[in-house]
């Protein structure tokens, strides 16, 4: 199976001269459809840099990023937003929802941004469908401050699914919720891989989430270790 996203010899250096920091070096990584890939490592190890490069939010200093077999790093900066919109959805530790908008409006906004030509009524329908799929049918018209942490993250996942991306990238998506809710969120993300064939890449410190991972990648001092098989792949989560 061909990878959806692939890193080849990717390195990232911040700054220059004596102050330069090599955040990532010579990283090779492939992300496949239908898998949950966990990225683990201590703080400052380069996990977030790796995730940002995977999501085309950051250009590597060396190496290439391939999306659907095409070298995205060779493309001009202005063409990257469209590729991100088509291929990636993002979920964040702090949810990053617009406080002034209801759950439905937050999701519809992202859907509209990813499909600028779509009719407003169609994007609303799509947002309703996504919120229903993440179990928030009854909370659509609530604003973020009226939702629990888990519900907010579900809204964020529904928003990430707007535009039907092939890869969901999560940066510590369970860090701001309690452990029971965290497992519920991972169940949801795991389900996306199994039921919809999407790839889910999650950066986390939490070892309990390994049960949902098909593969686990360790990052330390900017070096990406070879992925090992996760518990899910071994039949731990279903």
């Amino acid at each position: 199976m061909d990878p959806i996203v692939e890193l080849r010899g990717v390195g990232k250096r911040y700054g220059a001269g004596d102050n330069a920091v090599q955040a990532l070096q010579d990283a090779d990584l492939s992300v496949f459809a239908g898998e949950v890939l966990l990225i683990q490592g201590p703080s400052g190890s380069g996990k977030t840099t790796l995730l940002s490069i995977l999501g085309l939010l950051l250009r590597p200093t060396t190496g290439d990023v391939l999306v659907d077999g095409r070298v995205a790093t060779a493309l001009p900066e202005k063409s990257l937003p469209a590729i991100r919109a088509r291929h990636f959805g993002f979920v964040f530790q702090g949810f990053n929802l617009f406080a002034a908008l209801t759950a439905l409006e937050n999701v519809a906004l992202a859907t509209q941004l990813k499909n600028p030509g779509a009719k407003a009524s169609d994007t609303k329908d799509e947002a309703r469908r996504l919120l229903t799929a993440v179990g928030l049918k009854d909370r659509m018209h609530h604003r973020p401050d009226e939702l629990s942490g888990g519900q907010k993250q579900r809204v964020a996942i529904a928003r990430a699914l707007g535009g039907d991306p092939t890869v969901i990238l999560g940066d510590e998506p369970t860090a701001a919720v309690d452990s029971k809710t965290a497992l519920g969120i991972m169940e949801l993300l795991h389900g996306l891989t199994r039921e919809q064939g999407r790839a889910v890449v999650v950066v986390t410190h939490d070892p309990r989430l390994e049960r949902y991972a098909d593969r686990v990648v360790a990052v330390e001092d900017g070096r990406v270790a070879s992925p090992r098989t996760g518990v899910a792949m071994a039949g731990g989560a279903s």
Partner: protein
Amino acid sequence: MWTLARKILLHDRVKFLVAAAGVSVSVFLVLVQIGLYLGFMRNASSIIDHAGADLWVASAGTENFDIAAPLDERTYYRVAETPGVSRAERMILAFGQFKMQSGGAQGVEVVGLERQARLFRPWNVVEGDARRMSEIDGIVVDRSEFPKLEMSAVGDQREITGMRSRIVALTQGIRSFTTSPYIFTNIHTARVYTRLRPDQITYVLVQAAPGVAISTLRERLGRIPYVSAYDTPEFSRRARAYWSERTGVGVGFFMTAMMGVIVGLVVVGQILYNGTLEHIREYGTLKAMGAENAAIVRVILYQALISAALGLVLGGAMAMLARAGLRAANLSVVLSPAVLISTALLTVLMCSMASLLSIAKVLRLDPASVFKG
């Protein structure tokens, strides 16, 4: 994007109201200052603008319409016999002393007209018969000057520079820039009121004969010694320019109007920038998800435009109320469609400029920053 902009603004109502108040004060100051300025300027040239003359002949180098050096009456005859002149009329415009009933004196601008004057007559006559100002003591005054002149009705009598005067007609809305009331009367009485000699006048109003180019006639009249000839638009412009530019009045009004714009710029800019900082992670998220910069810039611009629209409505309403109040104080605030449209455009420009810092912030925003912290 429009909905997002509106909801972000309305989400924090206090900040939105502060922004709207800032724009309102700005709009109010700009409208009232420009309106007052235009009102004063309209007064400064109202007599010229309401005259039917093609050309005005004045003492050479006359800069101030209200305070012009007198002309020798022989000039009038030289003007009248100049080829191309269809009609010439004498006018006196000089100051006199109006004796108040309470004992004091009030400076007045006496306008003396020929008995058969056709090129200029008092306009907006609302009571009495203006033709009766040809009577020896007949004067026409503006109703709005009654409090200043301590008069109350047609028929009231007073003294001007020692000679009796009697109101024979009233006008409505004729005021001078100098705030000294205009007193219209016949040219002979005007000479007494202003202590001019019997052979002195102030202006000659000229009507060009059909087919004669005004510029040509102006050139001919300009050859008469010791006089200057102006076409009406230029003379009107000079009358306004004197007060506006030579006295600093225009700069004063302009500076106050600009203060209003600066207040609006700072208040709206600060509110928008704070709002942008508060939502910077959300904007970053949109960029990460693939939103183009243009889409996010639109959200900020829409917020600026919503603030501008509300500020225009509130500030415009405040200016209308102020106009009504100032009218009672004998001050006219000109809020013409051109002034309103110009102020609306200025407000939109001001609010758009106020959003530039916010726009620069989101344009520089690195989408990868959403993963930090």
